[in-house]
C-alpha cells in the first residue's frame, strides 16, 4: 500500500493506494490533522511508501521525484519558499509520517520541477532584476500532470513531436508550452492564481486593481482572499462553482458569460504559446474527467483549424490516452484522462524500481 499526500495550499488531500484502487479524502488545511490520518490507517506496517506532492518550494530541484533523506529535508527547511504557512503544514506531515513509518520509503514529488528550466524571458518578470535573483520568478504549476502527459504522448507517437502545447482542463485550467520535452512557458506564475481564471482565482488582472483596493481600505489578507478564493468562475456565476458546475448549470446569461471568458482565455494562451514555440506539432488536453469537458475541447479545437488542426471524436472512450487527430490534420491532438494519485504512484514506483 502506498500513502499519498497533497497539500494544495488550501486543503490537505490524502489517499491510500492499493492494487490500482484509490481511497482519497480531503480535509481543511491545518497543522495537526496528520496524526489523526495515520491513526486511522491502522496497520502502518502495510505501507511500503509515502509520497508527498510539494506544490511550492524555492529549492532548485533537478529531478521531479526524489527520495527524502535527512539531508534533503534539512535543505528543504532552509528553502521553505514564499509561503511559510504552507511549508509548515507540509513539514509537519513529513515529520509525522517519517516518525511513525520509519521502514517505508518516503518520496517527494516536486510539482513545479518541470518548469525549473524556463528560459529567463518566460521564467521571470519584468521587475528589478535584484528581485528575480531573490527567487521572485514564475514557478508554474501542474508540472507533474504535464510531464506525465507529454511523456505518454511521446511514447505513443509514431513521429517525433518537437513543439507541444499541453492544456490541463479543470478547476485550475492552465497551459504549458513544451519544446523537445522541456517546458518553455506556462500560464501559471509566481502563484497558481496567475493565468487563466480558475474556479475561485481571478487569473490575469491589472495589478493596479490591487492598489485601488488597498487605497479604499482593504487589508492584504482581504485582497488575497478576494483574488484567490472569491473570484474566477465563482464570481461570474455568483455562487461557488467549478468548471463542471458551470458546464452543467441550466442555461443562463451568467453561464454563457463564464464559458465565453473561460474559453477565450484558454484559446488566447494556446495561441500565445504557439507563437513562443514558432508553430505546433501536437496539442494535448488532459483532465480528470475529459468526457465532462468534451464541448470545451471541441470548441478550442475548432478555433485552431487555421493552423491545420482537425480533430475527431474517438470511438473508444475507455482508453486513458485518446488520439483525436483527423487523418487530414497537420497537427496531432490527444486527450488524456489523468488521475493525480495514479500519476504519483507511477512516479514513486518508477523511482523505487530504479533504486532497487
Amino acid at each position: 500500500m502506498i500513502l499519498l499526500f497533497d497539500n494544495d495550499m488550501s486543503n490537505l488531500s490524502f489517499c491510500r493506494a492499493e492494487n490500482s484502487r484509490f481511497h482519497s479524502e480531503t480535509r481543511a488545511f491545518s497543522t495537526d490533522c496528520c496524526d489523526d490520518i495515520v491513526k486511522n490507517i491502522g496497520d502502518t506496517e502495510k505501507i511500503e511508501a509515502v509520497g508527498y506532492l510539494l506544490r511550492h518550494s524555492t529549492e532548485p530541484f533537478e529531478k521531479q521525484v526524489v527520495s527524502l533523506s535527512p539531508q534533503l529535508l534539512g535543505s528543504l527547511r532552509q528553502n521553505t519558499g514564499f509561503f511559510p504557512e504552507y511549508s509548515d503544514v507540509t513539514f509537519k506531515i513529513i515529520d509525522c509520517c517519517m516518525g511513525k513509518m520509519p521502514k517505508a520509503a518516503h518520496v517527494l514529488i516536486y510539482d513545479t520541477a518541470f518548469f525549473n528550466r524556463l528560459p529567463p524571458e518566460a521564467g521571470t518578470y519584468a521587475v528589478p532584476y535584484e528581485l528575480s535573483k531573490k527567487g521572485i520568478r514564475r514557478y508554474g504549476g501542474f508540472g507533474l500532470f504535464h510531464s506525465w502527459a507529454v511523456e505518454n504522448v511521446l511514447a505513443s507517437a509514431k513521429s517525433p513531436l518537437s513543439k507541444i502545447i499541453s492544456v490541463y482542463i479543470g478547476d485550475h485550467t492552465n497551459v504549458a508550452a513544451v519544446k523537445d520535452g522541456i517546458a518553455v512557458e506556462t500560464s501559471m506564475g509566481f502563484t497558481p492564481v496567475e493565468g487563466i481564471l480558475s474556479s475561485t482565482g481571478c487569473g490575469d488582472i491589472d495589478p493596479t486593481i490591487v492598489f485601488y483596493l488597498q487605497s479604499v481600505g482593504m487589508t492584504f489578507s482581504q485582497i488575497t482572499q478576494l483574488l484567490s478564493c472569491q473570484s474566477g468562475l465563482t464570481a461570474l456565476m455568483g455562487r461557488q462553482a467549478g468548471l463542471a458546475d458551470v458546464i452543467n448549470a441550466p442555461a443562463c446569461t451568467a453561464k454563457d458569460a463564464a464559458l465565453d471568458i473561460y474559453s477565450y482565455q484558454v484559446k488566447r494562451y494556446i495561441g500565445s504559446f504557439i507563437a513562443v514555440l514558432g508553430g505546433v506539432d501536437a496539442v494535448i488536453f488532459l483532465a480528470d474527467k475529459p468526457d465532462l469537458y468534451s464541448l470545451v475541447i471541441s470548441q478550442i479545437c475548432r478555433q485552431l483549424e487555421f493552423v491545420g488542426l482537425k480533430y475527431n471524436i474517438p470511438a473508444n472512450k475507455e482508453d486513458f490516452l485518446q488520439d483525436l487527430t483527423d487523418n487530414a490534420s497537420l497537427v496531432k491532438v490527444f486527450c488524456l484522462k489523468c488521475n493525480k494519485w495514479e500519476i504519483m504512484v507511477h512516479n514513486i514506483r518508477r523511482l523505487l524500481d530504479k533504486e532497487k
Partner: protein
Amino acid sequence: MNVLVFNCGSSSLNYKIFQLGDNKDDKVILAGKAHRIGVIGTESSFIEHEFEGKSQKITVSLENHRQAAALIIKYIREEKNIDIGLIGHRFVHSGGYFNKSVFIDDKSLKKLRQCRPFAPIHNPISLSVIDESKTAFPQLKQYVAFDSAFHSTIPPCAYTYPLPEKIVKKFRFRKYGFHGLSYLHTMHQTAEFLQTSPEQLRIVACHLGTGGSSVAAIQNDRSIDTSMGFSPLTGLAMSTRCGDIDPMLTIYLMSVYGYRADEMQELLEKKSGLLGISGFSSDIRDIINITSKGEKEQAEPALNMYVHRIKKYIGGYITIMGGLDVLAFTDDIGVSNWLVREKICDSMNWCGVGLDKEMNRRADSEKTYRINKKDSKVSILTVPPDEERIIFLEGAKLLQTLKEKSR
C-alpha cells in the same frame, strides 16, 4: 476653417493646425511641440514651431502644460495671425463614461473632470489645456477625442475581470485599453495603403513607443482586444512598466518586504520593465546597442523579454481572429527599429508571416512602408504615427453631424 489640435504627452505638448477644406482634404498649416515641460534637468525646456517647411526653436522655461498651451496660442495669434475655428484635444481615459468624441459643454466637462483618477497623469494635464483654451477662446467650440474610445468595442469575454460583481461595478474595473487614437490611425492608413476597407482586414497592430507600448487585435474595423488593461501598467514589458505580472506577487512583496502601496506602485510603474531587467536603461535602443557589444550581462535578457511578450500577444490575437491579414508596426520604436521587428517576425511562418529582411532594414519612418516577402500570406507594414490627424478627422466628423442636425 482652421482646426487647432492639442495632443498632450506626460512631458510634452504637440499641436497642429489643420485647414479643413470643403471636400475634407486637409492640410497642416502650422505645427509644433513643447518639449521637457516641468522636467528638471540640465537641458532647458523649449517650444519648436514648424511653418512652411521652416522650423523655429524658442527656449523658454515651461513649468506646466497650461503655460505651454498659453504660449502656443499666443504664438498662433500674435506671430502668425492665424484664425482658429475649432479646437480639439486628445483625452487619454474616459473611465467608460464616453465611447466616442464629444463637444465640450458644461455637462461633458463635468464628466471629464470625474475621469481624472483613471489616468492620474494624463487626464489632469489635458483638462488644464482645455481650461487654458477656453480662457483664450471663450466663444470657440472645443471637443475631445478619447484614446480609450477605440477600445470600447472590445467584447465582454476580453474586457471582463472575473472579480465579484459588486466590486467590478463599484470601481468600474474592466479592461479599457490605451493608444486608441494611434490604432485608429494605423487601421485607416493600413486599409488605405492596401486599397481596401478596414472591414476586410484582420490586423494585429503593435504600438511600440519610447515609453508605453501595447498590442491590439483589430477585426471588422474595430478593436477586439488589447494588451493594456484597466491602467497602462499591464501587457508588454515597457520602458519602465512591468507589464503582465502575477497579481498575488504585488501583495506578497508588500506584505513580506514591507513596501508601502505607493512605493510598490512606483516600483512597478517607474523602476520595472526594460529598466528593471537591464538595470541600466529604459531605452530599447540603448539595450540593443549594449547587447551587440556584450558589455552588460542583463542587456540580452531585457531585449529577449521585450520581444517574447510582443510575440505572445501577437500569437494570442491571431488565434482569437482565426488567422491574420496584416501585422502593423507603429510609433517611434515600431517604425524606426528594424532589429526589434526582425526579432518579432522570426519563426512566424506558422501563421504566414514572412518578413523581407532587406526591406525591413530600409523601412521609411516618414511614410507607410511594406516589409513582407512577396510570398508572405500576411502583409507586414510600418505605419508612422499621426494622432493629431485622427483627432482632426474626429473634429471634422463632429462638425458634419452638427450640420446635419441643424438642417
